[in-house]
């Protein structure tokens, strides 16, 4: 089976000299869900931003066989949907419906087709009733759903979620896990939330100092890198 994402020896350095990626090799296969763990500043988000060409480093990234390069960016951004950590960064249009149609209209769809896709995506995430609302009237959980709808409306083949459980209460996290479980796309979950990842991911990779230091099942990775909530000692 061909991978939907393949990164080879990916390296990246920010303008201020910070080396964020030091040779990342990674593959994501159709339909699988991979959790990406790692400390803050280990390069997870920088890696994710390479997947649809928002950052451009050395080495290579291919999405569904297409090299991430300027001439392919429009196609690649349709294939890789990134849901950002803070939904407020993603919901910039005046109403939910306009926000969800933003992507489809940019793809060149007619307003009617964009409307249809938007309504379908809003229905898929279970928030049809919010279509006419302004984003600032929504709760954090609703905003996250709308942000996901905005990505689903572009009909991507890969979903990348950066810290998807941030700002969500436990019922919101549960609802999000249920929603993601029902989506057929290949998924990359960048998260610190071990329980959330364990509930959804088929495997996990661990970022350390700009490279993937290890991979395996979620249980294997958290065991190997001591990456669990139990590290906080109990006072009892």
């Amino acid at each position, binding site marked *: 089976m061909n991978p939907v994402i393949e990164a080879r020896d990916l390296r990246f350095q920010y303008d201020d000299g910070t080396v964020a990626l030091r040779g990342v090799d990674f593959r994501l296969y159709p339909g699988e869900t991979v959790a990406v763990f790692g400390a803050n500043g280990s390069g997870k988000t920088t890696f994710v931003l390479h997947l649809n060409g*928002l950052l451009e480093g050395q080495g290579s990234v291919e999405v569904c066989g297409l090299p991430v390069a300027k001439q392919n960016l429009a196609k690649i951004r349709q294939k890789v949907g990134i849901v950002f950590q803070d939904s407020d*960064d993603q919901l910039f249009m005046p109403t939910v419906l306009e926000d969800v149609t933003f992507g489809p209209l940019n793809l060149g769809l007619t307003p009617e087709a964009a409307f249809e896709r938007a309504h379908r995506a809003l229905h898929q995430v279970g928030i049809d009733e919010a279509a006419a609302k302004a984003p*600032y009237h929504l709760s954090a959980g609703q905003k996250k759903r709308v942000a996901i709808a905005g990505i689903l409306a572009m009909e991507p083949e890969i979903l990348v979620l950066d810290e998807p459980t941030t700002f969500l209460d436990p019922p919101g996290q549960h609802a999000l896990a249920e929603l993601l479980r029902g989506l057929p796309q290949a998924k990359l979950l960048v998260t610190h939330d071990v329980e959330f990842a364990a509930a959804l991911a088929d495997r996990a990779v661990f970022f350390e100092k700009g490279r993937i230091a290890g991979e395996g099942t979620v249980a294997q990775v958290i065991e190997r890198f001591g990456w669990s909530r139990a590290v906080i000692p109990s006072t009892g």
Partner: protein
Amino acid sequence: MHHVVLEQWSRGQSFLHARDARAKIPAVLGFLILVATAPAHFEPLALICFLLLIAGLAAARLPVMAALRRAGVVLPFCAAFAAISFLAGEPRRALSLLEKSYLSALAVLLLVGTTPMPQLLRGLDSLGAPRFLLMVAQFLYRYLFVISEQAQHMRMAGRCRGGLAGRRARFRAAAGALAVLFSRSYERAEKIHRSMLSRGFDGRIPVLAAAGFQALDAAFLAAWLSVCLLLRSAA
């Protein structure tokens, strides 16, 4: 906060709320031209305009007194110009300046109080307002809520640490908070731009077509502009 209240007002239901923004914008523009071009001695006309706006506020079921207070926000700005005219020996001109500014602010308040921002922007877009300007207005309005929330959090955090005694210390703290707010807003702008690019943004925000312009909207616009013309010719 002003924009929260206006947002609530604009989501009301009335004859004016139901009118298309493309009818209301030229209507207000016509009114502004009427007020701006009225002669300096225009007290009777000013009174009629004021009563018309009060009637508009009442018809839109907006709180009249609150709207009158809010429109007063322009007065400190024009007071300086009015004072200059007054000191130059033109008290009537000074008064008319204040009257015109207040009436204009009240008319614009009636427009934004009866038109939700998305509709207002769409209306301005279909009437040919520059897209870039509208994009800036749209982002400003959208993120005003987020930035003001951040500012409130920072203020609260400052209070939780005991606040600061003395005007000078408070001023310094406020200046620091402003700088932080600016850098955070800048950072957020970068993130927003990234999220726009990842959804195929190519420098132009697509705008959905506005709903149909009805005969009632045309009739409203025609009637309102006729009143303005009538008042202008009588002035």
